[in-house]
């Protein structure tokens, strides 16, 4: 790993990056998948009459916010693996930290996300720590925040990740 954070990386802190419109519209199929995966019987997601009465129409579970911004695994013309949260992967590369885990995640929910919405987002690096050693290895913590709006410009939420990028201790010790 780099012992000193390059100025070019420090300059990224606080700067919105990767402004993008989600590749998919918010759609019922993934909502059913999510509710099935967690056996979530909330009638808002299964009963159209309940959704109409309570939320003015079908909505997505708030906790699915990040799902709408993950790219397809493959699409025509795309080269290499498509990754969400690109600012996070940039930091791994720029700081020469091959592994990373998400340590903390904070979501704030704004207006409900509705089926048919096309959301847009921007990513902001909020902070990068000094070097730390954990049971996983040696590396740095960083915080990347994703701010999201719907097609009307309404705030639908933010999703903030604290990640630990690291070099595995056993690999760092290898000759």
């Amino acid at each position, binding site marked *: 790993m780099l012992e000193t954070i390059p100025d070019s990386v420090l300059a990224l802190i606080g700067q919105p990056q990767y402004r993008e419109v989600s590749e998919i519209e918010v759609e019922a199929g*993934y909502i059913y*998948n*999510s*509710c*099935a*995966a*967690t*056996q*979530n*019987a*909330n*009638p*808002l997601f*299964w*009963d159209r*009459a*309940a959704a109409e*009465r*309570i*939320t*003015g129409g079908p909505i997505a*579970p*708030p*906790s*699915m916010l*990040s*799902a*709408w911004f*993950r790219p397809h*695994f493959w699409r025509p013309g795309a080269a290499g693996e498509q990754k*969400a949260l690109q600012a996070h992967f940039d930091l791994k590369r720029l700081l020469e930290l091959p*592994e990373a*885990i*998400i*340590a*903390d*995640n*904070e*979501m*704030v*929910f*704004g*207006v*409900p996300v509705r089926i048919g919405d096309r959301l847009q987002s921007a990513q902001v690096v909020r902070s990068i720590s000094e070097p730390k050693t954990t049971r*996983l290895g040696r590396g740095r913590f960083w915080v990347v925040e994703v701010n999201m709006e719907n097609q009307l410009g*309404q*705030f639908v939420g933010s999703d903030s*990740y604290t990640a630990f990028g690291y070099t*595995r201790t*056993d690999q760092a010790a290898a000759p």
Partner: protein
Amino acid sequence: MTSAAPSRLFGTVTEGEALPPLSHAVTATTVVLGAVASRDWRPMHHDRDFAIQRNGLRDIFLNTPSQASWMERFITDWSGPLGRLGRMKFSMKDSIFPGDTMVIDGHVLAVTATAEGFGWVDLALAIRVGERLASNCQARLALPATDADNPWLCPPESWRP
């Protein structure tokens, strides 16, 4: 499917109140279903060899969005559909693997009335596997003040979670 699911009212909630625990036996299918539903194609959530060899873990593991969705289900099982989430914050302490039985529990940390026809309920939640703490979560939930109120109809400018 009934559309008349009851919802908890803000005034019935007390600080310290425990939520009914939720137990689930995690399988590889649990992990993969959650990863697919959240459009998370990263291999550590479906490829056991990758999780072991690259991440140094014992198996694939439940991803963060899946944990968030399990927490949401746990909260709204208790609140009913008029409960509206304002925020959630997770700290992942340890991974949840196939073969684990995860138990979600929690209690009410604080209640705060508003003038908007709902009140805020702050919850402290955890996912445990046996004695092992896997994740902590703090969540803020809006509950209706009366049967006639609905937090989902709060105007955006008054929604400040």
